[in-house]
């Protein structure tokens, strides 16, 4: 269309043109060309504007409706939404164990429910976080597993915990029983630190340091009641127990790390006013080592952990002096997304005086199947032997552990 107009205009101009006006004719032609180009650009711009408007309208389709359709709601009496995170964990098993010579089984074969855990956690305020773990056991009733408040930002890298907590004596003593890699705590831990491990009330200071000798160093200092009847003075304690742990962490590469920890602990075992009786002390020492390999690209399907700990106790009380040593070591391999297998070896001296040469040991092979992140089955066999002690009963156990709610374990 523009071309036709141009041709007509040019012809008209040519008809009117005189030879002397050739220059003015071409000037005029150029001018007309420019005007047509301008018109064309304007038309394109208008076309584009229209397209943009249509696109804008199309983009708005499906947006919120008109303000008239809004319904106003107060949102009051809805504070249940800030209830704490509440989770339950369940831990039960089926056991097959041979009868002993007296015809009694210890522990008996059959089905049993070990513990139901109620776990509650929430921020208290912008500064602190509280955690509670209650344990319901069929034969022992309700027990306060842990209850503590943590101030995570006390100073750079420094956190403070106050309450009753599983103590950082090595690695696994800190864990709840349902989250262990095997069914039960290692023999050395239950024999030397107490049936349930070390779990006392007090304060814990944790300091994460960027030390020159490691990729990360964690220093833990805990001052607690000496309320463990096994190690210290029990409920009538009169002197606190002190724990110190130094954990050094090394990243070998992005898939492999090593952690080595050293723990020392001491406290009085004298009840009622026994302060200052240096000869009535219990001293503990521990060493832990964890080597883990988990390829970052295959972490769901492959991984290996080797963990070992040594425990030493020296309890000097009025009647006797007990010195005992024990430890464990296990390897665990992830076979696939759902399957893991492992083998643990435990050995310990008895927690009694004059125990030189006496020991008890056990082997614990196991196979774990994760139904999902929230339900796990474990088939575990235990067998062992002893010298001058009762040997652990051989037993086969199928364990089921599960969690309801947001419960999760974050180990490294």
């Amino acid at each position: 269309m523009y071309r036709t107009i141009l041709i007509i205009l040019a012809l008209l101009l040519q008809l009117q043109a005189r030879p002397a006006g050739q220059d003015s004719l071409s000037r005029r032609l150029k001018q007309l060309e420019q005007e047509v180009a301008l018109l064309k650009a304007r038309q394109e711009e208008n076309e584009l504007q229209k397209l943009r408007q249509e696109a804008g309208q199309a983009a708005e389709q499906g947006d919120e409706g008109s303000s008239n359709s809004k319904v106003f709601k107060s949102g009051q009496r809805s504070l249940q939404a800030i209830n704490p995170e509440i989770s339950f964990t369940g831990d039960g098993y089926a056991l097959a164990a041979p009868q002993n010579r007296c015809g009694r089984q210890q522990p008996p074969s059959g089905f049993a429910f070990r513990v139901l855990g109620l776990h509650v956690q929430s921020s208290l305020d912008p500064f602190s976080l509280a955690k509670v773990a209650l344990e319901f056991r069929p034969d022992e009733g309700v027990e306060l597993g842990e209850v503590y408040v943590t101030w995570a930002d006390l100073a750079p890298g420094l956190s403070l915990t106050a309450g009753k907590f599983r103590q950082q004596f090595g690695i696994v003593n800190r864990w709840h029983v349902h989250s262990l890699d095997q069914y039960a705590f290692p023999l050395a831990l239950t024999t030397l630190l107490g049936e349930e491990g070390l779990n006392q009330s007090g304060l814990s200071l944790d300091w994460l340091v960027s030390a020159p000798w490691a990729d990360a160093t964690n220093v833990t200092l805990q001052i607690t009641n000496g309320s463990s009847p096994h190690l210290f003075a029990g409920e009538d304690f009169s002197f606190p127990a002190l724990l110190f742990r130094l954990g050094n962490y090394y990243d070998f590469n992005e898939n492999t790390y090593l952690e080595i920890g050293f723990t020392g602990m001491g406290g009085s075992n004298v009840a009622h006013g026994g302060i200052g009786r240096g000869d009535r002390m219990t001293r503990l020492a521990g060493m832990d080592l964890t080597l883990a390999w988990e390829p970052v690209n295959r972490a769901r399907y492959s991984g290996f952990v080797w963990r070992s700990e040594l425990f030493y106790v020296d309890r000097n009380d009025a009647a006797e002096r007990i010195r005992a040593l024990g430890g464990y070591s296990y390897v665990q391999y992830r076979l696939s997304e759902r399957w893991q297998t492992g083998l643990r070896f435990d050995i310990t001296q008895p927690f009694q005086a004059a125990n030189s040469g006496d020991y008890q040991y056990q082997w614990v092979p196991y196979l774990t199947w994760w139904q999902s992140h929230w339900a796990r089955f474990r088939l575990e066999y235990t067998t062992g032997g002893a010298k001058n002690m009762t040997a652990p009963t051989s037993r086969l156990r199928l364990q089921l552990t599960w969690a309801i709610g947001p419960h999760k374990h974050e180990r490294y």
Partner: protein
Amino acid sequence: MRKPLWTLFLSFLLLQPAMAAKKIYVVTTLSTYADITARVGGERVEVHAIVRGNQDAHFVRPKPSYAVMLQKADLFVSTGLDLELWAPTVVDRAGNPKIRSGQPGYVAAWDGIKLLDKPTVLSRSEGGLHIYGNPHITTNPLNLKVIADNIVTGLEKIDPASSAYYRANLKAFRDEIDRRVFGDELVRLMGGTLLTRLANQGGLIDFLQKKSFKGKKMIEYLGGWLKEGMPFRGKTIVAYHKNWVYFQHLFGLRVLDYVEPKPGIPPSPKHVEELIREMRAQKVRVLMAANYFSAEKVHDICAKVGAVPVMVPMGVGGAGGTGDVFSLVDYWVSHLKAAFETVNTKKQESEKR
């Protein structure tokens, strides 16, 4: 003897301003966030990522060395939405109050992104849940512009004096994303903002197909990744996990089913059998998965169905040739396109026979 001492002292004084202008130490969860931060922050930031491009961001051990990184951080960028479930543990261990949620040193990458796939039923029977919506926001390149906005807001809070510098870098990044997604010509005609709105609303391709300009259909002006992705628009795939919801939305892909029966639940043999039957019945011949999932499982399913596996990294650096966000999206689009081309070739060959 005194002269060298004085020289040393004077040099120290002269070096003071340079030392004062120290870089902002940024730690990000995903490697993709680290790449974006490096682009908008330029030489004024030092960036470290925790999650590798070929790593599953859900399952990362909260190692003490990460806590040490966060202890030093001025700015921490994470997705939020419970993608990085381990992150609160590392932040707690770091004891650095500046980078906690709600503080100036924290950036939630998802802020401002229209979340898809919000669960209607909040129950573990649905597998792993993200109650606010799907957290795999980085799979739509248009979302990267919003993430870059958020990161720049975070940088400005710490270093307001460099605001103009960050904003200029942000503009360059946004423009580059627009050009890469829509092509130069369409961006010149319609503008990136409008195109982004239309694409996010889901009506861009329909609009371009209906409208004309200068005697040509608007779709003919389309370039970039969207043009490259036209061969698989409207096509159906199977995915391993709900990683690709945002990618699907932009590129118009349909997902028939997932290798995981529910998010986070490992596939059972029975479910895999059903999936294979379904793929055969529906003639679905492409299976897309993040490259941290089981390659054996993916290849096994594909072999049984005659499908083409597309295993790609979720993040920057997760495979060769994915060194930045642009090459990462290039990788996704080109591999998916190539898979559908292979499927077509196979189909034609079988028809000839």
